[in-house]
C-alpha cells in the first residue's frame, strides 16, 4: 500500500525539538571577523563625507570600508527591462535612497566591537526631498536616479484584451469596455506595505579555504542564485564558490534575492582570507530585508443589474521602494490573475512600477497574486452591494464553469483545471452560510452595537510558472541499502525532507528513514533554482520521484541478469526486500546486494532527472470569514475562518494543512493588523516587533480547513502548489467581512489593515 497521500510525521522534527536547528548564526567559525553596517538615518540625501577615523581607533575594530574602498560594480538584477541606472550598489555611494541603506561597514574582532565601532562612524549628509507618496513619485518632481530621467522602473501598457467570447460585441476603438454595462462601480484600494518577518533574521558567514574556494553560509531560499551573485561580484567562476543554506528560519519570499549586505560577507572573506560573519538585528531587518505588497489599485467593474459581470479594469501602481528588485515584476503576476475565478468577457490591465525612498519591495507570500485576488474579490463584493445581491449569489452566477478547462482568461493565462462552484458550495455548506446571514440580520434588526460580518473570496492563483524553470534531482541507492535523494529546491520549513523521502521510499519500497535527503548545498547538489512561489513539489518533487523510478528500472535490469529472469517479471518488494520475481520470495535480490553489484561493475544505481513542467498550475479555493465589529470602539474580532482549498493531489495532508494554516494567519495579519508605515519624510515608524503588529496566537481562532483534490494534468504527481493559497484567499475574505459588517451603516469600502481606529473613523464619517 502506498505511503503517498498519508499523514506522515516529519523526519525534520526530532532534531528541531531536542537540539534546535542549525541556522546560519549557529555555524561555528572560529576567528571570524564580525561585520556591522552603518545605515542611513535619512530617506534621501547626498553623502557628503564619511569620517571613519574614530571608528578605526575603537577597540577591536580592524577596518571600516565605504563604497569607494570596495570598488564593486552594482548588483545585476536578472529581471527584464529595469533601467540600468537604477542598479543597486553594495554600499551607497554619493546618495542614500532609504532609511537603513548601508553606507559603510565596520569589521571588528567581536560583534559588540563592530556595533560600537559603527556608532563612531561620522557621515555627513545633505538631505534631499523624500519620495514616499506614489503620486509624488509619478510626478517626477524629485528623481531618485536623475540619470534615469524618471522614477518609472517598469510599465505594462494597457493592451486591448482579447475577448473570451468570440462574436461578442467588441468595444469600439473610441468606446470603453464598460459601454454595455448597466452598473459600473469604481474604487481605489491600497494593498499596504508589509514586513515579511521570518522569525530568523538574515545572517551570513563565509570562509576562504586553503584550496582557494570560498564557502558561504546563507539564510537563502535560493542558494544557487547567491552563488551566481557572489561569483559575479568576485569575478571568479561559480565552481570556486560553495553556498550552503543550512536550516533557514522561514523566508516567505523575502529571503530570495541578492542582498548586498549579505553578499559582502562572502566578498570580504575572499578578500581578507579570514572568516567573516554577520547577523542583522531585528530592527535592522525591518529596514533592510525587502518588504512586500505595496500596491495601489484602481478597479472598475461593470455588468448587468441582474448580476452578470461583463468588464473589468485594473490599474496598478506598484511601489518598488528605492531599488527596483522583484517588485517591478510583480504586476505581471497581478495581471496574469486579474480576473480570478470569474468569466468576465473584457479585462483591461495597466501598471506602472515606481521607485520611492523606502525599503525595496520584494516577494512576500503570494507575490502579486494576493494583490490580484484582493482587487477582484473586493470589487465583486462592491458590485454585489451596489445591485443589492448576496455576494455568494453574484459569485455563483459568474464563476468559470468546470467544463471550461483548460481555460484561457482574458489576460491570456491558461488555467489547468478547477471546479470553483464546487469549492464555493462546499464552503457555504460547511460554514452554514444561511444561518450566519440569519444571525447577522437578527442582530441588525434589534440594533446590536456589535455587528456580524461575513466575507467571501473564491480565489485561483498560479504556482510553479514554467518560465521560472524546472528542477534537478538525483537518487542513488547505496550498498548499505539506504538511498540518497538530492534536490535543487531549498526548503526552509516546508518539510521537504519528509515529502521527498516519502516519494523515494514509496518508489523503492524502503522505509522512510532509509532515505537521506540532501538540499541547499551547491557542492552536493548539481544545480537548482530554489523554493519560492509554491513551486517545489511540482518541480523538484516530481524530479525526485522520476529519478527514483529510473533507479528502479536500472535495478530491474541488473536483477534480471543476476536472477536470470525477465526484468518484466520483476517487481519492487514494498516491504523493503529489494527486487524479485513476483510470487517467488526466494528469487530476489536485496537493495544492498543490487547496489553492491552495481558498484562493482562501476555503474552505481543512480539516476538524475531535470523536470520542467509544461506550464504553471492553478490552485483554487473558497474562504469565508466571520467577524464581529464593535461599532462603539471599532474593534474587530475574527470569529471564524473557514477555508476550502484545492492544491491538486496531496502528498502529505499533515504538511499541506500546515502550509494552509500559516498562509491563513498571514492573510488575517494583513487584513487586520500589519502595515509597515513610513511618514511623509520617509522615516519608518514600525521598525521593531514592538511597533509592527506581528500577528499572535491571541488574535486568531482555530481554523476550519477543508480540502478538495482536483489533480492537475501538468505533472505526474497531480500536485499544485499550496504554500501561498491560504494567504491569497483569506486576506480579502477577512477584509470583505469587516466591510460587510458595516454595510448597513453606509460603509462601502475600507482599506487594510482594519485597525480599530480606521473602522471607528469610517463609522464617524458615515454618521
Amino acid at each position: 500500500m502506498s505511503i503517498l497521500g498519508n499523514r506522515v510525521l516529519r523526519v525534520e522534527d526530532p532534531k528541531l525539538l531536542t537540539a534546535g536547528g542549525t541556522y546560519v548564526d549557529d555555524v561555528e567559525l572560529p576567528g571570524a571577523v564580525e561585520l556591522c553596517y552603518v545605515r542611513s538615518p535619512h530617506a534621501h540625501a547626498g553623502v557628503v563625507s564619511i569620517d571613519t577615523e574614530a571608528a578605526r581607533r575603537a577597540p577591536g575594530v580592524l577596518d571600516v570600508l565605504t563604497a569607494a574602498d570596495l570598488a564593486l560594480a552594482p548588483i545585476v538584477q536578472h529581471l527584464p527591462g529595469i533601467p540600468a541606472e537604477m542598479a543597486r550598489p553594495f554600499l551607497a555611494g554619493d546618495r542614500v535612497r532609504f532609511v537603513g541603506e548601508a553606507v559603510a561597514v565596520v569589521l571588528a574582532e567581536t560583534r559588540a566591537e563592530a556595533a560600537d565601532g559603527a556608532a563612531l562612524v561620522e557621515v555627513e549628509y545633505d538631505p534631499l526631498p523624500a519620495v514616499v507618496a506614489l503620486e509624488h513619485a509619478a510626478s517626477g518632481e524629485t528623481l531618485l536616479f536623475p540619470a534615469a530621467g524618471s522614477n518609472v522602473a517598469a510599465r505594462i501598457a494597457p493592451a486591448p484584451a482579447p475577448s473570451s467570447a468570440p462574436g461578442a460585441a467588441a468595444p469600439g476603438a473610441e468606446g470603453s469596455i464598460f459601454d454595455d454595462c448597466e452598473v459600473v462601480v469604481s474604487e481605489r484600494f491600497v494593498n499596504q506595505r508589509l514586513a515579511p518577518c521570518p522569525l530568523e533574521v538574515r545572517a551570513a558567514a563565509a570562509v576562504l579555504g586553503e584550496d582557494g574556494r570560498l564557502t558561504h553560509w546563507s539564510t537563502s531560499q535560493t542558494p544557487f542564485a547567491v552563488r551566481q551573485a557572489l561569483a559575479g561580484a568576485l569575478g571568479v567562476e561559480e565552481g570556486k564558490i560553495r553556498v550552503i543554506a543550512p536550516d533557514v528560519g522561514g523566508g516567505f519570499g523575502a529571503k530570495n534575492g541578492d542582498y548586498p549586505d549579505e553578499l559582502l560577507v562572502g566578498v570580504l572573506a575572499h578578500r581578507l582570507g579570514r572568516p567573516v560573519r554577520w547577523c542583522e538585528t531585528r530592527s535592522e531587518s525591518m529596514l533592510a530585508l525587502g518588504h512586500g505588497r505595496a500596491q495601489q489599485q484602481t478597479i472598475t467593474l461593470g455588468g448587468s443589474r441582474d448580476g452578470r459581470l461583463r468588464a473589468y479594469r485594473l490599474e496598478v501602481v506598484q511601489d518598488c521602494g528605492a531599488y527596483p528588485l522583484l517588485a517591478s515584476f510583480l504586476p505581471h503576476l497581478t495581471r496574469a490573475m486579474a480576473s480570478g475565478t470569474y468569466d468576465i468577457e473584457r479585462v483591461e490591465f495597466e501598471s506602472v512600477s515606481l521607485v520611492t525612498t523606502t525599503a525595496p519591495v520584494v516577494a512576500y507570500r503570494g507575490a502579486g497574486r494576493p494583490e490580484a485576488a484582493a482587487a477582484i474579490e473586493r470589487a465583486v463584493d462592491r458590485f454585489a452591494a451596489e445591485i443589492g445581491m448576496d455576494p455568494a449569489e453574484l459569485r455563483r452566477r459568474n464563476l468559470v464553469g468546470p467544463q471550461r478547462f483548460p481555460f484561457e482568461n482574458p489576460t491570456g493565462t491558461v488555467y489547468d483545471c478547477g471546479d470553483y462552484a464546487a469549492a464555493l458550495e462546499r464552503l457555504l455548506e460547511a460554514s452554514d452560510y444561511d444561518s450566519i446571514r440569519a444571525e447577522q440580520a437578527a442582530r441588525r434588526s434589534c440594533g446590536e452595537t456589535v455587528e456580524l460580518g461575513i466575507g467571501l473570496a473564491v480565489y485561483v492563483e498560479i504556482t510553479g510558472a514554467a518560465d521560472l524553470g524546472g528542477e534537478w534531482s538525483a537518487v542513488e541507492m547505496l550498498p548499505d541499502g539506504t538511498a540518497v535523494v538530492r534536490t535543487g529546491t531549498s526548503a526552509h520549513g516546508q518539510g521537504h525532507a519528509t515529502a521527498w523521502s516519502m516519494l523515494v521510499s514509496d518508489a523503492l519500497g524502503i522505509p522512510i528513514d532509509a532515505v537521506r535527503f540532501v538540499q541547499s548545498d551547491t557542492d552536493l547538489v548539481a544545480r537548482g533554482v530554489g523554493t519560492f512561489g509554491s513551486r517545489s513539489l511540482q518541480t523538484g518533487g516530481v524530479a525526485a520521484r522520476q529519478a527514483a523510478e529510473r533507479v528502479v528500472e536500472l535495478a530491474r535490469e541488473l536483477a534480471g541478469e543476476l536472477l536470470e529472469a525477465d526484468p518484466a517479471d520483476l517487481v519492487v518488494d514494498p516491504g523493503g526486500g529489494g527486487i524479485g520475481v513476483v510470487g517467488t520470495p526466494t528469487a530476489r535480490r536485496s537493495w544492498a546486494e543490487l547496489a553492491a553489484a552495481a558498484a562493482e561493475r562501476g555503474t552505481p544505481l543512480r539516476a538524475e532527472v531535470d523536470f520542467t513542467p509544461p506550464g504553471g498550475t492553478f490552485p483554487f479555493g473558497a474562504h469565508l470569514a466571520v467577524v464581529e465589529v464593535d461599532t462603539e470602539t471599532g474593534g474587530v474580532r475574527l470569529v471564524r475562518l473557514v477555508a476550502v482549498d484545492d492544491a491538486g493531489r496531496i502528498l502529505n495532508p499533515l504538511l499541506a494543512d500546515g502550509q494552509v494554516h500559516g498562509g491563513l494567519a498571514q492573510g488575517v495579519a494583513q487584513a487586520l493588523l500589519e502595515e509597515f508605515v513610513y511618514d511623509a519624510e520617509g522615516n519608518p515608524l514600525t521598525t521593531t516587533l514592538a511597533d509592527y503588529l506581528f500577528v499572535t496566537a491571541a488574535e486568531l481562532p482555530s481554523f476550519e480547513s477543508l480540502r478538495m483534490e482536483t489533480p492537475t494534468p501538468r505533472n505526474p504527481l497531480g500536485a499544485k502548489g499550496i504554500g501561498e493559497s491560504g494567504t491569497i484567499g483569506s486576506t480579502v475574505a477577512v477584509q470583505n467581512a469587516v466591510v460587510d459588517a458595516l454595510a448597513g451603516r453606509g460603509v462601502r469600502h475600507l482599506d487594510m489593515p482594519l485597525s480599530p481606529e480606521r473602522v471607528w473613523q469610517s463609522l464617524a464619517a458615515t454618521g
Partner: protein
Amino acid sequence: MGVKIVVEVNGTAQSHEVEARTLLVQYLRDVVGLHGTNIGCDTSSCGACTVLLDGESVKSCTVLAAQADGRSVTTIEGLAEPDGTLHPVQSAFREHHALQCGYCTPGMVMAVVSLLKENPSPTESEVRLGLEGNLCRCTGYHNIVKAVLAVGATAGATAGATAGAGAAAEAGR
C-alpha cells in the same frame, strides 16, 4: 569588569567569567555553546529566546547572565529525558505538526512547558492568551494550540481518573 558566575545549565554546573553586559541568551549561545535557544528580536517581543530559570519561563534576552548566578537554567537541549525520551510537549509538537522552520520552537516549547505547569488543562483561549508573547511566523499557531490542548487533555484525563469524571469532561472541551 568581568563577573564570575556559576549557573546550573541543564543539570550541569557551569562556571565562567562574563562581561557584566552579557545577556543570558548570549551566555547560553556563545559561552556555554548551546545554540538551541534562538534570538528573534531586540525588543523582548518574540519569545524565541524563552528558557526556564528555576523552572519558570523567562525571555533570556531580558535577563543578564549575572542574574542567573546560583540559579538553574533549562533549555530545549535539556528537556528530554537523559535516555532520549521526549518530554510530552515535545512529542505533542511532533504529533500535531506544531513546527515548521523550527526557529520559534525551542522558545515556544519552553513557554508551553511553563504554561502547562501553571495550568495543566487550559482552555483554548487560555492557551492563546498564554502564548501571546511567543511569535511564530510559520504555523498560524493552529497546530501549536492543538498540541498544547492535547497535552492538557491528557493531564486532565489523568487527573480525572483520580478525581472523578467531571475533570475529564472538562478537559475534553
